[in-house]
């Protein structure tokens, strides 16, 4: 786990990509879940942030 945060701090690709992936997955889940309208409302921005992050961090060093 500390490796993960270390990687984040040092702008390494692996952990950041993981974070972006989680954000995208969360956004997609929020978009389609049937439980709270609030989740649906904020789903798009979550996915958008995750996607943009993914594009950026995929250029970080391994």
């Amino acid at each position: 786990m500390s490796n993960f945060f270390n990687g984040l701090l040092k702008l390494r690709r692996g952990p950041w990509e993981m974070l972006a992936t989680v954000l995208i997955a969360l956004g997609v889940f929020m978009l389609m879940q049937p439980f709270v309208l609030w989740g649906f409302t904020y789903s798009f921005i979550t996915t958008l942030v995750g996607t943009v992050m993914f594009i950026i961090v995929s250029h970080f060093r391994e």
Partner: protein
Amino acid sequence: MSEKTVDRVAGATPVLLARKIKGLSDRAIAWIFVGPTIFLLLAVNIFPLIWTVNLSFTNFKANRINRVVDYVGFSNYERILNDPDVWLSMQATAHFLFWTIFFQVLIGFTLAWLINKKFKGNDVWTTIIVLPMMLSPAVVGNFWTFLYQPQIGLFNYVIGFLSGKDASSFEMLGSVDLAPWSIVIVDTWMWTPFVMLICLAGLRSIPDYIYEAAEVDRASKLRQFFTITIPMVLPFLMLAVLFRGIENFKMFDLVVQLTGGGPGSTTELASIHLKREAFEKWRTGYSSAIAIILFVTVFGLASIYVKALNKVKER
């Protein structure tokens, strides 16, 4: 390089062309080769995409050319993301996504595992099983409405025969409870082979020596299945799930032909909802915003997909 060969070759090509080509660096050739593709994609994909983003901030209506178009800021997005009808269409999509992937993985993996037992003639049967997924979803979907007819349809007849119920006592496409399942059934019929093929590739990529080593360690077959087979196939399975997820998230043709979104709005998936807004109500600005939301979602999933692709490629 002897000068002679160069001359010989140059002589064989038309003079002007030869002069041009000789002068080109590899780099220039690379751009000449890639250029047309990039240009086409920019013109037919990226330019329209930017246009869509622009439209999504307006109240433009494509059937009302004479009307003044106003920029409305983020209000289209606000309306969509608070609209219970859109939310419902997303939930219908979720139901469709979840269950199609569930059944396709379950059946697809089982089939792959069975085929991997390498019985005689397995390749012939594999090819036959694959057939449905290569066919036109619209044409096939349309024909399934015939199979689902309560009074004359083969599907209802077979189910009625097996369950002892009257074949016209249930309506796959017409009833609110069954319609979401009717589209799951057809999609599963069509796309299980896809998951099967990828799982099969995964199973075949496991080298025999791993099992042999496990056998030496006296691991049981069941244990081998869970500690070797499943983990080794998992990246492939991920690939299949992501791809089916993306495809079914934007599902249109099959379901439009099957239910058209009905009854009521029970099977109105995201794409169908978008089509109604864009090409029936002609709310171009509003529907552009929905398009962008769908696009960003697919794009996000696609990024993960490509990452998974590369991972599998390395195997």
